[in-house]
């Protein structure tokens, strides 16, 4: 296996959790809800995903546990922000704090344990094709699923009536309500979907990326996923591009550290975080003149009249 091939494969692996979580958050934000709890949902997905796989030996069960954990946590968020009209920023922060605490509690018993990592696809001839074979036909299920998910979200948003309604709710909840659309119910579904995606993104880490669980192993990926949604201008295609770009930054700094260029390793480790800040600045500045492209009711509390 050539170096470039290896790098591409590792970039894809590093990007996949970001892509999964960010894709879910994109749908949530398109419905007008800002859920800043991605980091908390991801780490819960990681802990519960590991637990599920540890007890059953099945990656699939682990993934489902991760999804369930993320969705369950997002349900708490929904109860607060949709049910009780709580400020979404504050509730999102609370969700992150709770998720980190709970995952520590759940995962404490699993630290140091190992599981078999997610199996990779193997197709007799195709996987053997030089260079592209392993990239296209030798990934694990998470990778294929994440790509399919982004395509499906694009199709949903722009090709289905339900997607149109979701975008409408995010643009003006008062108009959507006046036309009789159940704004809160639609948002609830979006938030649950986003929670499930974040949970799956988190579960990817212990199930496929490293075959063990460490407390805090998401290491800010949830926040980077949130930044990716801003970067993408809420467009699924750009989201995927952004996620792979960030994956590349992460891998590049790992390789640079391995080469030991005399640069302090801490600086290299800080690179993805610094890159996030820089990208946010650049994208916001570029957008400054064109105005915001965020969904118009993003983060605004809605309480219907009855």
């Amino acid at each position, binding site marked *: 296996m050539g170096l470039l091939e290896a790098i591409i494969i590792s970039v894809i692996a590093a990007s996949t959790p970001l892509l999964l979580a960010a894709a879910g958050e994109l749908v949530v934000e398109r419905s007008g809800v800002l859920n800043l709890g991605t980091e908390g949902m991801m780490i819960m997905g990681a802990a519960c995903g590991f637990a599920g796989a540890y007890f059953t030996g099945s990656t699939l069960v682990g993934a489902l546990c991760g999804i369930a954990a993320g969705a369950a946590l997002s349900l708490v968020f929904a109860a607060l922000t949709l049910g009780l009209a709580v400020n979404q920023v504050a509730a999102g922060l609370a969700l992150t704090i709770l998720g980190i605490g709970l995952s520590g509690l759940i995962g404490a018993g699993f630290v140091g344990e190992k599981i078999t990592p997610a199996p990779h696809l193997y197709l007799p001839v195709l996987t053997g094709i030089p260079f592209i074979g392993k990239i296209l036909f030798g990934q694990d299920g998470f990778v294929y699923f994440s790509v399919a998910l982004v395509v499906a979200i694009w199709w949903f948003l722009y090709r289905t009536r339900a997607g*149109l309604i979701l975008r409408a709710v995010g643009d*003006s909840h008062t108009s959507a309500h*006046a*036309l*009789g659309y159940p704004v809160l119910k639609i948002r609830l579904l979006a938030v649950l979907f986003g929670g499930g995606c974040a949970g799956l993104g988190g579960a990817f880490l212990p199930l496929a990326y490293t075959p063990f669980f460490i407390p805090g192993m998401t290491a800010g990926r949830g926040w980077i996923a949130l930044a990716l949604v801003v970067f993408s201008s809420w467009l699924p295609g750009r989201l995927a591009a952004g996620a792979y770009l960030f994956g590349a930054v992460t891998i590049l700094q790992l390789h640079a550290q391995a080469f030991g260029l005399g640069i302090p390793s801490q600086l290299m480790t800080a690179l993805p975080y610094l890159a996030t800040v820089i990208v946010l600045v650049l994208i916001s500045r570029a957008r400054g003149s064109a105005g915001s492209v965020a969904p118009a009711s993003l983060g605004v509390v809605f309480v219907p009249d009855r």
Partner: protein
Amino acid sequence: MNAVPVSNPSARAPLLQAIGITKHYGTFLANDSIDLDLFAGEIHALLGENGAGKSTLVKSMYGLIQPSAGELRWMGEKLELTGPSDARAKGIAMVFQHFSLFDNLTVAENVALGLDGVESFGAMSARLAQVSRDYGLPLDPNREVWRLSVGERQRIEIVRALMQNPKLLILDEPTAVLTPQEADQLFTVLFRLKSEGRALLYISHKLDEVKRLCDTATILRGGKKISTCDPRQETAASLARMMVGAEIGEVKATSARATTVPRLLINDLSLEPDDPHGVYLKGISVEVKGGEILGIAGVAGNGQDELFSALSGERLAPREDNVIIDGHAAGHRSVTDRRKLGAAFVPEERLGHGTAPRMKLSENALLTGHAASHMVHRGFVDKPKTLETVDRTTKTFDVRKAKRDPEAVSLSGGNLQKFIVGREILREPGVLIVSQPTWGVDAGAAAVIRQALLDLSGRGSAVLVISQDLDELAEIADRIAVMFHGHLSAPMAAADSTREKLGLLMGGASPAEALAGVAKEASHAVGA
């Protein structure tokens, strides 16, 4: 869409009957046991002051809110609406007072969202083109809504309603945002709908319109039904009496209103909008003398908001001399500095712009008073002083409230507006700039406010009033200019400005065209 023969309405069964509709909001009674019968082939007016409960009543009829008591009957059968889609399924359509549109979606998408989605998007688009052609309501299906004028936006709402082929069409204050000419076009469509045998419920508080258009009128006041009558048999005065419940005093200018030197000068003001959906201001020049009220008419969204923020200093002008207040070039000065020069401002939006809704009135007095009213000493707030301002405003302008210092949001629209206008007028500003002074305000409060503006100008201040309400401008302004697409027409004396002339300018005609247009219309009227 064949016309139903129109016979004597009372001989026929009503299409929709409302029986004892009651709606509570907490302890507040917005609708109090209202009965209403609507007939096919009839335009029924629902008249009432702001806050009378008109919108609340029709929201019940559209299934948007659940009445606390009472029932609806549709062609004699009990009607249970769990939501607007139930109403649409029956054949009830609605054009909302505050549009129910999605700014960042296209016209076609907006229409699709208002239908219940049985046909394909393609079929819907084709039908949209046909209906809009059929009724003479042109629309570009691929444009995003934020690019459209207010009149075009309303067209979307109407076309969307018509595409449901409704038996009953409810229109909530549709002409509030239109030029007189656009309103006339709308009336043509409404007459056609009536002749097609549809029932129309037309909400307004413009009496002349109702007398022209409607067969029956129901008058609401304070949530109660006052009467149902034939508006053509009533005079405007008798309708107004029913709406308001008392005679409204005429507002009067103080006798001697000598105009003095110009106190507010706007010189060739051009300004780029700060949000992408905004309007460019283009070369605006006008002066307002002491003792004069200058009115600026125009349909909403033609740059009035941008002009207001450029005058108030919320946005700075490109040049220092674009705005001159009492001889001081103020184009680059902040809101606070302009207030210190003796200017005062009343924005259109009461809650969130003119006041912080969840803050107390005393804090809202501080909001504009901190600059020039000695409410702050060395950075510390003089609380008794802010309360005293509240008390004085309350007394002078008859602000009704439940306690001495409530939150702004708890006041009714009229009382809050009296507070906001009063707060500024008590400072005796040399220049007052006010936007939509009586928008959504009851007639009593509107009279108090207009009188206060006249009195202020009588004391020698320059007053600039931005308003969509031509009647209001006719009542108080000395000169009137019209805003269209960021341009301001040359002002004309209020005495010379007819509704037609202003209406044409509001629709974008040049002054010369406006004059010619008026002549043409007059000849048409004679011909017809």
